[in-house]
């Protein structure tokens, strides 16, 4: 069941009403049953895979808490191996096998390892990371093991964030399932606002841009470099609105019922450097890697070369997390290289800025930094979106060498105008939030009529130019 469907809207209304009608002690059960139904609406049998890891992690948590010394570590390792093992089989087995076939093929040897005819369960990477954060936090003593199997299951299956995050931490979410949330008007309205904004991002911006991006990226040989540059910029906004739109809907849906999920995006395209970008983009994943991998590797409290290595390896693995394809690995690695290069070149860049006197023009400097960061991000997105590595390099080559028409043949001009309109509205609203926080607000206006008219206009815009036959959210595949 995808968020941008009538089925989900009806499901959400039904579950929310039932949630507030039911006595507190039954609510967790309702949410768990609803979450199971929500997940089974995709491919029912895959709930068994979640069930397998849930049982392991539930008992692992209890055993880790009850044991001392090496046994604690043993249970943690067993839990991590089970989680990563499931992910490896479903997500990486055929990828590794493909590469083995290629490798053996270069020695004229056939690959004896069979392929598995399996589909990746939707949202398995998100579920796995959230489950791993639980056992790690119990091991570290930051979280008490959850004794109620149902509540633990709900923690890793809570339907708003089950298939595409935010990847929650047990300290933030688990205790909320035991809290008594009354119907709170302000919170409900705030949650619905977030959901509406998420639907706008998904239907008006992401799905509209997808039409152009898919047409260009699925046939790069036939496109001009100019078309591919535009398609890449469009993709930057598409993936942002697709994913952050999902997060908005998830966070909003949870908020309506009283739950606070962590913020996942903070207007990332206003970042002035790559490091800041990663503090604003997919925050729940970035912080997950920071808390559980980067710091475990020693973070920046190591030798400088090792620090660079730590940064690079985190982004390399982040790329791998996103998908079993070299394109994602290159994308992740490229971001790692950006970060390392930014650190190495910091002194030189400061000197250049000083010599050129750019420091004296802070606004212009700020603007250019945003543009450069956006350009670097877009360059990396080429690898993320391209269908394969060969296409990525072809696209990059064409972007720099092949001038031609901006619009590809058969592009619908009205759809193109709607694309720009969507991006313009998005940027206008985000710029307002970024730079003019305290000024006039439509959605939080003191006057009820202005507020209601603003919501109504947003709904009308969605009806007028939203794409209602759009596809799934991009991040479902991860």
């Amino acid at each position, binding site marked *: 069941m995808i968020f941008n469907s*009538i089925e989900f809207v009806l499901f959400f209304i039904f579950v929310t009403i039932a949630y507030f009608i039911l006595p507190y002690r039954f609510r967790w059960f309702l949410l768990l049953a609803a979450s199971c139904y929500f997940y089974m609406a995709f491919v029912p049998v895959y709930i068994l895979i979640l069930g397998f890891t849930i049982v392991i992690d539930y008992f692992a948590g209890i055993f880790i808490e009850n044991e001392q010394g090496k046994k604690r570590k043993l249970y943690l390792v067993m839990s991590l191996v089970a989680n990563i093992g499931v992910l490896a089989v479903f997500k990486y087995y055929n990828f590794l096998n493909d590469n083995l076939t290629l490798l053996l093929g270069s020695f004229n040897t056939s690959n004896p390892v069979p392929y598995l005819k399996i589909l990746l369960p939707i949202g398995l990477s998100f579920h796995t990371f959230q489950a791993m954060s639980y056992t790690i936090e119990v091991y570290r003593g930051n979280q008490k093991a959850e004794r109620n199997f149902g509540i633990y299951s709900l923690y890793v299956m809570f339907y708003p964030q089950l298939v595409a995050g935010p990847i929650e931490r047990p300290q933030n979410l688990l205790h909320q399932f035991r809290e008594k949330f009354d119907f709170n*008007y302000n919170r409900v309205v705030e949650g619905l606002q977030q959901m509406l904004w998420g639907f706008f991002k998904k239907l008006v911006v992401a799905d509209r841009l997808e039409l152009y991006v898919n047409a260009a990226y699925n046939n790069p040989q036939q496109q001009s470099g100019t078309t591919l540059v535009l398609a890449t910029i469009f993709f930057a906004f598409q993936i942002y609105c697709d994913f952050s739109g999902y997060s908005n809907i998830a966070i909003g849906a949870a908020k309506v019922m009283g739950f606070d999920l962590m913020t996942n995006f903070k207007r990332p395209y206003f970042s002035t450097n790559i490091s800041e970008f990663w503090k604003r983009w997919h925050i729940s994943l970035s912080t997950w890697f920071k808390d559980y991998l980067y710091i475990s590797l020693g973070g920046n409290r190591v030798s400088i070369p090792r620090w660079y290595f730590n940064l690079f390896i985190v982004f390399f693995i982040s790329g791998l997390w996103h998908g079993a394809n070299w394109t994602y690995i290159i994308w992740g690695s490229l971001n790692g290289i950006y970060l390392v290069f930014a650190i190495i070149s910091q002194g030189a860049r400061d000197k250049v800025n000083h010599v050129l006197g750019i420091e004296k023009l802070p606004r212009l400097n700020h603007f250019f930094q945003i543009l450069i960061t956006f350009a670097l991000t877009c360059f990396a997105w080429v690898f993320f979106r391209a269908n394969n590595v060969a296409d990525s390099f072809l696209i990059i080559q064409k972007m720099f060498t092949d001038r031609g028409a901006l619009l590809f043949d058969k592009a619908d001009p*009205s759809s193109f105008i709607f694309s720009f309109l969507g991006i313009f509205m998005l940027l206008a609203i985000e710029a307002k939030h970024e730079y003019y926080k305290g000024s006039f607000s439509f959605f939080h206006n003191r006057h009820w009529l202005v507020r*209601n008219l603003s919501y109504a*206009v947003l*709904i*009308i815009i969605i*009806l*007028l*130019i939203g794409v209602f036959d759009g596809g799934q959210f991009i991040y479902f595949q991860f």
Partner: protein
Amino acid sequence: MMFEDRIKQNAYLYFASRLLLLLLIVFVLDFSIGKILRYYYFKQETGRQYRATYAIDKTTADVLIFGSSRAYHHYVPDIIETNLKQSCYNTGSPGQYLLYNYATLRAILKRYAPKMIILDLSTSEFQVGRDSYDRLSFLLPYYKDHEEIRPIVDLKSRWEKFKLLSSIYAFNSSFLMIAGGNSEYFKKRTTDLKGYKPLTGVWQKPITPEIFQDYKLDSVKVSMLTSFIDDCNRAGTKLFIVSSPIYVTYRERDPSMVLIDKVAKEKKVPFMDFSYDTSFTNHPFLFNDPSHLNEKGAKLFTAKVTGMIKDSVAAR
């Protein structure tokens, strides 16, 4: 205590009252904007939507052409009129396939029975896929007044009739096209060629080798073909199924073509398959792109088809 204060004390009631107010504002805006869009939609005098309205609500031509962009660009009504001595209109619509064609046919048959229909079908026409269902949204403006097309539009999703409670929804993503269709500027620039639009490009790249893919056939689309044939028979309309030329080499016959051949033989309907015709595929200068003939190719093709139709009619 004031009424509003009492409502504020009960969060549920307060929320319900505010939600009701919002829904009222949305309803008023949706209804008003939807009405305006509907008015201007049906007032268009040029463009793709105008052509659809003309085909569904107005044409009385003896010969009608049905199909996708390949019909739209391949059949020249003037040549058909001259050769067959009957009036002709091309209802071909870019990006639309048999589902759309069948819905249009049902709407037309409700008004009158054309003497002849040429249905142009493409390779991969019956392949399983969502696209041709999603594209039925093009027919949403007609849903309200054309009961006969509803079962077909409902194939898009089971929620269409509920979504259409919004007056705007039927005109989603259309307002720029509606503006264009009402603009004198576009009207002056567009010559009405009875639904046909010539393409002027010349294809200069090598022929596209088709990687043969055996695909699943969509049973709904297959049933639409038999319904299309049956409805024409019932109305006494002569039907000719044609697959127009394509600049692609096939190693094996496309499964959709095999199916059309089989159904046409069963239903005793003439099927002219030009998808392998070397008199076109050997001449790239007749094509605008691999899927479409240019004006020169279209004129040659239309003459060839009408000649074959004349022969077929004479033989019957």
